[in-house]
């Protein structure tokens, strides 16, 4: 349970970090909170020859409005996100999700960029990023690019990041006026990764569903956005029958892998239950704000 040897780098600027990544490429790994990378190093599942420590780059921890989007720096800790008044106002789904990550001490240290770069299929941040259509700003020495979450998350633990590239920031669309959201997850023990997690946003117009986003994590290598399901249920009044019908359709839309300890049927059932609970919570919030 001791990590392999590595050379440690502590850049004082983003440019310096990118230079280091350019020089060492596939042999280097950026480290932010280390809440996923260090366990992997301790278990020798990862053994980078060079570790580039991003923790001094405090400019990467900023949270700010950029036009119609909310931009959260890659180094923002889960606690910063969960307790930010700006995030609560403009992207409340992100607050609800960040509060459920790991444990108290883990949230103090783990970062948004780290969670996305790690790309666990059941993690909160990839699910929210997919559900809301987040965009990631990536940087390498030769330049920056902006990538949609759907093009960034390629498979389980696999992203579009090049070996010498890192996440700088993530931007989310600001919640529209009247839009409400809910996050629901199921795990066997508090703080574990979800078996299934669901994120939803809902907006009503004249008592009918004007917009609906549904995302499900834990049912595929990458969180799924159920646009085909959502678009089939617009224009209706969101009563109990509507919630049950959407939840059933969500269940049919996912095809989780069958696993000896977690059968596919169980994940499908969880999908239905959690979609129903998330939507019920959204409707409750809509009624409270109406």
């Amino acid at each position, binding site marked *: 349970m001791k990590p392999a040897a590595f050379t440690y780098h502590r850049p004082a600027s983003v440019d310096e970090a990118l230079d280091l990544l350019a020089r060492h490429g596939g042999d280097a790994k950026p480290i932010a909170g280390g809440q996923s990378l260090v366990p992997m190093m301790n278990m020798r599942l990862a053994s980078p020859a060079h570790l580039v420590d991003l923790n001094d780059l405090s400019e990467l921890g900023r949270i700010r409005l950029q036009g119609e989007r909310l931009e959260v720096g890659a180094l923002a800790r889960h606690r910063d996100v969960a307790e930010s008044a700006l995030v609560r106002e403009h992207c409340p789904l992100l607050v609800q999700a960040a509060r459920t990550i790991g444990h108290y001490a*883990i949230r*103090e240290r783990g970062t948004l960029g780290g969670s996305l770069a790690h790309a666990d299929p059941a993690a909160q941040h990839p699910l929210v990023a997919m559900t809301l259509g987040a965009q990631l700003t990536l940087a390498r020495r030769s330049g920056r690019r902006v990538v949609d979450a759907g093009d960034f998350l390629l498979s389980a633990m696999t992203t579009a990041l090049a070996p010498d590239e890192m996440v700088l920031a993530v931007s989310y669309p600001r919640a529209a006026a009247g839009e409400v959201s809910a996050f629901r997850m199921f795990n066997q023990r508090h703080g574990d990764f979800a078996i299934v997690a669901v994120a939803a946003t809902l907006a009503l117009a004249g008592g009918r569903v004007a917009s609906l986003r549904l995302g499900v994590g834990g049912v595929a290598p990458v969180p799924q956005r159920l646009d085909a399901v959502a678009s089939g249920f617009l224009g209706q009044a969101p009563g109990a029958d509507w919630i049950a019908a959407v939840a059933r359709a969500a269940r049919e839309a996912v095809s989780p892998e069958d696993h000896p300890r977690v059968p596919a049927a169980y994940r499908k059932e969880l999908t239905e239950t959690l979609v129903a609970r998330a939507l019920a919570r959204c409707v409750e919030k809509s009624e409270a704000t109406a």
Partner: protein
Amino acid sequence: MSTQRITLTVNGGNIEFDAPPRKLLSDALREDCGLTGTHVGCEHGVCGACTVLVDGRPQRACLSFAVQLEGHEIETVEATGTPQQLSPLQQALHECHGLQCGFCTPGIVMTFEAFLKDNPDPSEAQVREALTGNLCRCTGYQNIVDAILLAARRLREGASQ
């Protein structure tokens, strides 16, 4: 394996030692700083036994490398109370029988040093949520929860006097 000089600020004093970058903070505290109050359990961030404070915030010592902590203030359980004068939380753990073998206790003490500053008047549910990050295999959690709530009450009463 090449070592380098590392200076850590622990419990208000500087400690210098030579270690390779791969040295975990948890091991450096125990082996190089001689502070064995920080316990090492799972070494992958699950059990919480090695929790210390870094710049006042709780952090898993097994998920940081000592070299990363240069320039930061580390506090370990050794800075919290003495055998003659326990901290309010340590005293409450003692009175409520909140420990048996004591292995998990330093991590719980350090976690809740920070938690009770963040949440001076926590609900039982909040305490239980925060305690999910610290595994205890002896007592069950009821007495630990009781102790934390008792300490919170005493700290509030102390603060209002």
